[in-house]
């Protein structure tokens, strides 16, 4: 095993890790060695052909359908330079005050996080899309909300030179979506931060002057053909770093720390794992819409989030994802897919509680296993969200609405005044309704004691002054908005603690 020495090793190049290396660029400029390890590869836009099956395999872990143990929910997260920012839609929302205040963590201040998040909004060119770039699918969402007297909020999206190909979740073929691979990582590399791809960190452990990483650089052929080789020769490396920052995401960070043996001293490691379970609803209109063209998302309705724990957003997905998300099968299911050009789509998302038994563990090979169940309050929130979405569709003029928690699933305009009765928890059977989550959080929660948390409010793992966490796994509870800006703001906050340690 070859030995490598460095000052800071960062594990994972997504929203968290990408942000950390950008903040540590000043160390690299000052001559310190900072290395970013990413287990996936670096993909460029020439690989993004917009085909669902190719891109799901190329960009997502488990093809975008990583199952939780009871198979009631599938998780979507990505690997490769940029992590899940390669496939995110770019909805750029600030950390909500209510949630950050509820965290009640010394040193984690809402105003400070917002200031950092605002800076990333600017860095990522997040802005409101101008009217002509808004497609019919988004316009109908707005129209439906307005007709109901509800406030549809237009939110900023982080695009530059967007052509409106609507393929954001399959990798942007136009380099227009500003992820960490586009913005923060190139800036860090220009300052001298080293990037090592196809480099999976198997374990981290304490050394004499920091941490020691066991890194495996892969040369295995990729199932999807030729991909870039790693910057390092394939093989195993022992990397000695003064400071180690773990940013593998909410599934992999807890798993890495568990297989490294930290679970013995940290009883809540992997626990309080949470997400925003979501599913798609479609409304059928009488004429074709611009839906699969134009940036997919610009509007949300979140007025009920504090009370009813849900929010809903305009969205658009591709035929297979749509087929998967509609409940059922058979002639009616296929008929709706044939109406694809006339479909309006809404994503409903529930804000979940973080519970100790919802957790990440590892299997015999040290790989993550997610134990997560849809709890009754979450199902209730999804049903309420479905009712709200159904109202928006009808108010926007839809002829029919497919609601997974109704039986039969198709609501017609005759059902318009009976939505509350037609959509019911009774019909929401985990396992038969397609629920997926792309906003994953917790597992290495911040806090003040070892009994209730994994890290300090500055992301330092309790009892390990050389080891930090800087990604979505830090969230003590679920956040009530799309999370990437909060992840970046927190990662930046952790990076300040790392800078302070390195400057001593």
């Amino acid at each position, binding site marked *: 095993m070859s030995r490598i020495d460095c000052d800071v090793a960062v594990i994972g190049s997504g929203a968290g890790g990408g942000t950390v290396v950008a903040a540590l660029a000043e160390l690299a400029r000052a001559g310190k060695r900072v290395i970013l390890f990413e287990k996936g590869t670096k993909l460029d836009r020439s690989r993004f052909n917009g085909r669902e*099956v190719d891109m799901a395999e190329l960009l997502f872990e488990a093809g975008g359908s990583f199952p939780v143990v009871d198979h009631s929910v599938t998780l979507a997260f990505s690997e490769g330079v940029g992590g899940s920012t390669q496939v995110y839609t770019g909805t750029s929302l600030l950390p909500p005050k209510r949630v950050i205040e509820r965290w009640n963590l010394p040193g984690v201040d809402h105003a400070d996080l917002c200031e950092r998040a605002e800076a990333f909004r600017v860095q990522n060119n997040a802005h409101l899309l101008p009217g002509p770039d808004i497609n019919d699918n988004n316009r109908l969402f707005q129209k439906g909300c307005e007709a109901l007297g509800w406030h549809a909020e237009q939110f900023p999206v982080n695009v530059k030179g967007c052509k409106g190909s609507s393929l954001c979740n399959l990798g942007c073929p136009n380099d227009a979506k500003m992820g960490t691979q586009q913005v923060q990582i190139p800036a860090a590399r220009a300052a001298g931060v080293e990037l090592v791809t196809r480099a999976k960190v198997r374990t981290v452990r304490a050394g004499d002057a920091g941490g020691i990483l066991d890194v495996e650089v892969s040369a295995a052929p990729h199932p999807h053909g030729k991909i870039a080789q790693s910057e390092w020769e394939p093989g195993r490396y022992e990397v000695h770093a003064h400071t180690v920052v773990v940013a593998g995401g909410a599934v992999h960070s807890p798993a890495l720390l568990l297989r490294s043996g930290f679970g013995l001293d940290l009883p809540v490691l992997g626990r309080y794992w949470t997400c925003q379970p979501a599913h798609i609803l479609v409304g059928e209109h009488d004429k074709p819409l611009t839906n699969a063209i134009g940036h997919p998302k610009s509007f949300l309705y979140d007025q009920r989030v504090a009370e009813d724990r849900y929010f809903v957003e305009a969205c658009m997905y591709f035929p297979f994802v749509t087929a998967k998300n509609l409940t059922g099968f*058979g002639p009616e299911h296929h008929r709706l897919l044939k109406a694809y050009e006339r479909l309006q789509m809404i994503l409903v998302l529930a804000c979940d509680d973080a519970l100790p038994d919802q957790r990440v563990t590892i299997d015999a090979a040290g790989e993550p296993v997610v134990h997560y169940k849809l709890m009754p309050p979450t199902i209730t929130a999804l049903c309420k969200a479905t009712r709200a979405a159904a109202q928006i569709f009808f108010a926007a003029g839809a002829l029919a609405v497919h609601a997974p928690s109704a039986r039969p699933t198709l609501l017609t305009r005759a059902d318009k005044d009976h939505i509350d009765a037609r959509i019911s928890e009774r019909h929401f059977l*985990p*396992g*038969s309704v397609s629920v997926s989550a792309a906003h994953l959080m917790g597992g290495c929660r911040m806090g003040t004691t070892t009994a209730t948390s994994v890290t300090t409010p500055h992301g330092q793992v309790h009892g390990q002054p050389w080891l930090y966490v800087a990604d979505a796994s830090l969230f003590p509870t679920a956040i009530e908005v799309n999370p990437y800006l909060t992840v970046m703001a927190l990662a930046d906050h952790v990076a300040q603690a790392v800078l302070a340690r390195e400057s001593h």
Partner: protein
Amino acid sequence: MAAAILTPLHDKLRPIAETMVPPIADLDDAAFLKVLALIDVRLAGEPPALGRQLRLFVKVLTFLPIFFALRTFGGLAPKRRLAFLEALQDCPIQKLRVGVWGLRTLIYLGYYTDPEVQAALGYRPRLDGWEGLAREKAQQAHEVHP
């Protein structure tokens, strides 16, 4: 080539797949095997136990109707096939619901990701977005009024 996981069960799978996605009935054997081959590629990266569970589940779906209707799934009339699968989809046993969900999702993967099928539904990826749409519209207008 990916290991054959569901392909060897094509005769048992065909009536199930046709019930779940009616236009699969129009596919010839070669085209249906292509659908299954794509599923096998997806399953190749999964633990072998999953393949075994799926094969077992296909056999359960095939033979379970014998207890209710004295016929295998393939021997049921199309309406009864659909009713049988719908009953399982909403049954109280989560494992059975998950099995139906998983199998139908794989069949959707094999069928609805085909670019020709997607085009027939009215979808095709336009990498150049609005520009591409405008060009197509101009072309169509030109074809109507050359």
